[in-house]
């Protein structure tokens, strides 16, 4: 008998699961980058350069801010400087400071049938309104007397899975419990389409 075949070892990306060399064609290359710099620097030599440049940028940013504060101490800040600082504060003051700027603030509710009979209701996006998912999951479980848990969805983003079909009552519950979430920001996924709940 011939010698046994040894399985080849393939480096799969810890973020998107693809072979690391294909991350650049994957769903979100940006998110893979930090992992790749750590684990596969030879595959993407440019990334390492990029990372180093960023680090250098940060240093120069810091130097600049030192410059601003010393200008302020002199009592003669230039208009450009004050413009710069107020802009920064504005960003900070946005409601729900934790919110990533890029992401649209919306809650997505989807019903999924498992094993033909069992059904779960998936709630995504509450965290975008500054709601702690673990708390929300507890409240949902209590209100609907069912199991609810925070799980990682397909894109590694956390979502709440609630056992059972609670789709008819959930919107009211969300808007009652968290008044910060407007009804018009809540959507259902129906037959693969996004439909506004309101």
């Amino acid at each position, binding site marked *: 008998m011939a*010698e046994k075949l040894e399985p*080849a070892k393939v480096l799969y990306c810890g973020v998107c*699961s*693809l072979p690391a*060399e*294909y991350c650049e*064609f*994957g769903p979100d290359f940006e998110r893979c980058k930090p992992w790749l710099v750590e684990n596969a620097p030879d595959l993407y030599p440019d990334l390492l350069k990029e990372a180093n440049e960023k680090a250098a940028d940060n240093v120069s940013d810091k130097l600049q801010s030192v410059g601003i504060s010393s200008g302020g101490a002199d009592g003669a800040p230039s208009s450009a400087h004050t413009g710069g600082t107020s802009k920064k504060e504005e960003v900070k003051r946005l409601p729900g400071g934790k919110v990533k700027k890029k992401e649209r603030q919306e809650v997505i509710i989807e019903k999924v049938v498992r094993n033909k009979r069992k059904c779960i209701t998936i709630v995504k996006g509450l965290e975008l309104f500054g709601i702690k998912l673990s708390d929300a999951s507890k409240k949902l479980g209590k209100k609907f007397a069912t199991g609810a848990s925070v799980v990682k969805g397909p894109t590694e983003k956390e979502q709440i899975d609630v056992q059972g079909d609670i789709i008819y009552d959930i919107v009211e519950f969300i808007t009652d419990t968290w008044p910060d979430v407007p009804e018009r920001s809540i959507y259902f996924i129906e037959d693969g389409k996004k439909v506004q709940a309101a």
Partner: protein
Amino acid sequence: MFKKFSLEEISSQNQVKASVQRRIRQSIQEEYPGLETVLEDLLPKKSPLIVVKCPNHLTLVVVNNVPLFFCIRDGPYMPTLRLLHQYPNIMKRFQVDRGAIKFVFSGANIMCPGLTSPGGVLDEEVDAERPVAIYAEGKQHALAIGFTKMSAKDIKSINKGIGVDNMHYLNDGLWKMERLD
């Protein structure tokens, strides 16, 4: 095939009769003689071979919750990409040029020019209606499992239209279904 594939698609999941298991093992062995030395590890006679039936005449062969092979209707069994990555030499290879990679990732079938351009490579021995591993210019690992619509020679001479059907590709539903639990 697996663009929108998920656990909900599974219509039945059965441990099949010993005779059927034997037949499946046999046809896999005939199709992929290179696997002979590891077949007993992959499809151990002791652990049950689970056959999962899905819509569109799709069948998955699953061992210990891991999908290893799939087939359409009575077609040949084809390995999942994760399995092929482990044993890359069990299939004939084609290579697409770099420009075609993103189309393969979107599930598109493979057009002849993507295989015949300078970045592409054809194994001239491959006939029509054969399983083939799809590689890519500048990459080491396969990115899709294809089923040829025409022979490699025809792909080269006709050089127009779809040359290979894209059966299973990186990040499709089957890829995401690393395990069935």
